[in-house]
């Protein structure tokens, strides 16, 4: 396991009920937002555990975040190489097991989840062909997943989006099935930043424990360091949702 070197130390949230819950944050070569995801876990009150892609055992964690970045340089295809990391097979097994390990894939993490077939569809280059960094409004379409229970259904949230290969695609049948089963978790509102089919920003698996999305909730957890409106903390709900689920308490 690797240790995530932090810049300074982060303030720790006060809710002691949650800090026993351990959320693993995976680092691949080329992962960029691992420290940010770990900070988000801490600010939500949980304990972040650094996981290394080459580990052959999944440490005793209660949930896993696969953060953003350019794992293996996005070479071949974003997420295509990382999907074969030793740790990924453990994560895939745990996500599909009866225990239904909660797994969140953000940006490159989402791409890894589709490459791993934990989630359907794929991401291709943005329709405008450029990297785009902006604050993006999303609508929470499904608040019954492990990662969205703290949101209201239909709630609009503002989180950063930053990617080059963010256009979600799947065949019509798959898209229809996702819609019919309520597995579209987030939709872009007001502006589709990458040409994603049906404005889809994030989806879940049938069991609701695995969620992937292109925007970055971990960059909207601390006032002053995220989007300037909405206090900039709309992303915190992802992490409190899963922590509350783990400790078994209601909101």
């Amino acid at each position, binding site marked *: 396991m690797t240790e995530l070197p932090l810049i300074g130390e982060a303030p720790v949230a006060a809710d002691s009920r949650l800090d026993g819950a351990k959320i693993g944050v995976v680092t691949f*070569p*080329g992962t*960029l937002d691992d420290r940010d995801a770990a900070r988000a876990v801490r600010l939500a009150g949980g304990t972040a555990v650094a996981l290394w892609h080459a580990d052959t055992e999944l440490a005793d964690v209660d949930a896993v975040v696969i953060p953003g970045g350019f794992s293996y*340089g996005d070479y071949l295809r974003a997420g295509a190489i990382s999907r074969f990391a030793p740790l990924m097979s453990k994560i895939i097994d745990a996500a599909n097991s009866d225990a239904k390990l909660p797994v969140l894939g953000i940006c490159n993490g989402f791409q890894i989840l589709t490459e791993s077939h934990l989630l359907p569809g794929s991401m291709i280059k943005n329709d405008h062909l450029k990297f785009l*960094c902006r604050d993006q409004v999303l609508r929470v379409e499904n608040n019954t997943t492990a990662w969205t229970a703290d949101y209201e259904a239909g709630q609009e949230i503002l989180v950063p989006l930053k990617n080059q290969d963010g256009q979600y695609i799947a065949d019509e049948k798959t898209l229809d099935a996702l819609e019919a089963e309520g597995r579209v978790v987030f939709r872009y509102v007001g502006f589709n930043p990458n040409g994603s089919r049906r404005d889809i920003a994030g989806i879940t698996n049938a069991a609701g424990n695995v969620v992937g999305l292109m925007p970055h909730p971990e960059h909207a957890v601390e006032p002053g360091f995220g989007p300037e409106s909405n206090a900039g903390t709309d992303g915190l709900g992802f992490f409190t949702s899963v922590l509350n689920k783990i400790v078994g308490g209601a909101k």
Partner: protein
Amino acid sequence: MTTETNKKFNIDTVENAANTPDTELPWAELGLKENEFDEIVKVLGRRPTGAELAMYSVMWSEHCSYKSSKNHLRQFGQKVTEEMKKDMLVGIGENAGVTNLGDGWAVTFKIESHNSPSFVEPYQGAATGIGGIVRDIISMGARPVAVMDPLRFGEIDHPDTARVMHGAVAGIGGYGNSLGLPNIGGEMVFDAVYQGNPLVNALAVGVMRHEDIRLANASGKGNRVVLFGARTGGDGIGGASVLASESFDDTKPSKRPAVQVGDPFAEKVLIECCLELFKGSLVEGIQDLGAAGISCATSELASNGDGGMQVELTSVLLRDPTLTPGEILMSESQERMMAVVTPENVEAFEAVMDKWAVEYAWLGEVTDTGRLIITWEGEVIVDVDPRTVAHDGPVYDRPYARPSWQDALQADTFTGSVQDAGRPSAPSELAAAVTELVASPNMCDKSWITKQYDRYVGGNTAMAFPDDAGVVRVDEKTGLGVALATDANGRYTYLDPYNGAQLALAEAYRNVATSGAVPMAVSDCLNFGSPEDPDVMWQLAESIRGLSDACMELGVPVTGGNVSLYNQTGSTPIHPSPVVAVLGKLDDVARRTPSGWQEDGQAIYLLGTTAAELDGSEWAKLRGHLGGLPPRVDLAAERQLGEILINASRDGMVDSAHDLSEGGLAAALVESSLRYGVGARIALEDLLERDGVDLFTALFSESQARAIVSVPRSEEVRFKDMCTARGFAHLRIGVVDAASNALEINGVETLSLDALREAHEGTLPKYFG
């Protein structure tokens, strides 16, 4: 390597060189002058080998040796007061300077040019510019935390500008975004003088604990020398290709790109891998490989250390097995580092390499001979005193003189010129002028560029473009952070190099203070034409003199930087463009001051006074005029203004602050309104009376040492008292009006924010899609 390799080359050993003194060498093709070649022969006491010639030619180049600027650059080290030394932990000369931030934290930053490669191949040129500066920061032992990019391209409507723009911006984004470093600001200037010679400068900043500072030196006999990271290929060799004449093999690839090709993934892995090495204290000295590659790394490490070094060149891992020894020594392949490791740490070092899957090769060891010996399969091909390569290169006192045309240029003022005919004065004309200004290529919104950069990664970005400075948190517990701004004005510097360079510093200093940070250190990137042109050499000499004088007056030391010469097309040089970066410190980044107003009813104050200073201005540029004298420099006023802005931020007296620079008050008012989409009502009658200027001048003059701030009602008395006590000119010029959705200036037709936004934001998309 087998002996087969040896057969590919006619290896020019030291022994061979001693025995064949009359062999013709391609020194001229490698860019050396005859006197320089003669000097090499004198230093060695024989003719150089092919490999030695390769090393000297790159290390004695203008880029690596600063031979034309060195005599002038000394002023940055000489004009230093005790106040300036106080927080400097590492000064000029290392990969980057290091400044003390307090609480055991240190910060290192540096700005460099990557101009020529970015013209030839904009994407890779700009990308590897980022890569190179980031490795400089890692070499100091720091974790890089942010980057910035000052860019200067040709006219916006020239067909070639789009090529450079798309390539360079995509390259900066493609590389920087993949490293996980937020891009927090920069500049974008369009001017015909940069058409055939765009300026692509790159800045990186990193932070570390004091105990983690690393220096580039090879000490300790028996310590091992290792090269790690990417393999060495034929990219970036440039002039070295003439050494291919060494080769017997005609089938080797003949055309190699002179521009380096970057692999950001390899760099990101290298960053993490180096930080892990530092954490375990596994390296004694470390040096990145940039310009001049292995030539530079071996000679600088050995020269800065206490002995010599012995290196076996066939141990270098190659991408292209046909490379000659000279080419291997000169290759500028990216994402490589060289380190010195004690024998006890070899195993631990290899474990870190293996963990990150980074390739490495043990090349040799540190010796106490005082010589840098490089062998090829055991045969000595380089035997030099490393100091003669790295530090004792030629130094030129190039002739310089004030250009014959300078007086005429300075006499040609804007006021009263043909271009000044029909100066706007009616309310509708002034409104049209403001709109034209904020839509102009240099004053328009730059988010077309910045939205292609990741500003969030790291989670510590407290402020970024379009605010005056980028602000990054260093310590999450205390909120301690740094602010950075870069500025230059080639037009001002062309009119008056001494004052122009000072104005660049003044603006960067002001931008940092505007954010609430205390300016602490300077890094400069001096972009000029050919030093062999006495006019250009005068511009360079005057700029360095001006900048070093101003640094002393403002109490901020230059801790590093870079000189880029020969920026010209044919015999036409670019405008002298000293780009100045200032770094400041914020005790708590939560106290940073953004550039736009938000709260309805807050009072808007203008700090400083306005004179009729339109020469060299953006307005004059819009009308096609360049002449006269740049705005007057008043460093005492800049310092005072800085103190007011910093105190106001610390004590919560202002909610926004925006500096006045290019485009004057007109640009600042529009930008502060559009920042959060909040309007204002402005009345400048008192200003016109106090400063004796007309409304047009009040709006478009570029007088220095000015800023606008918005002050909460509850703080107004305290704020005014502070300005009065310090004797600094301040004037209430208006009030924030959230409901109006307009910028209303008495005497100017109402400007709706929607129309201003459309004008301001429409320009770059119009030209670049």
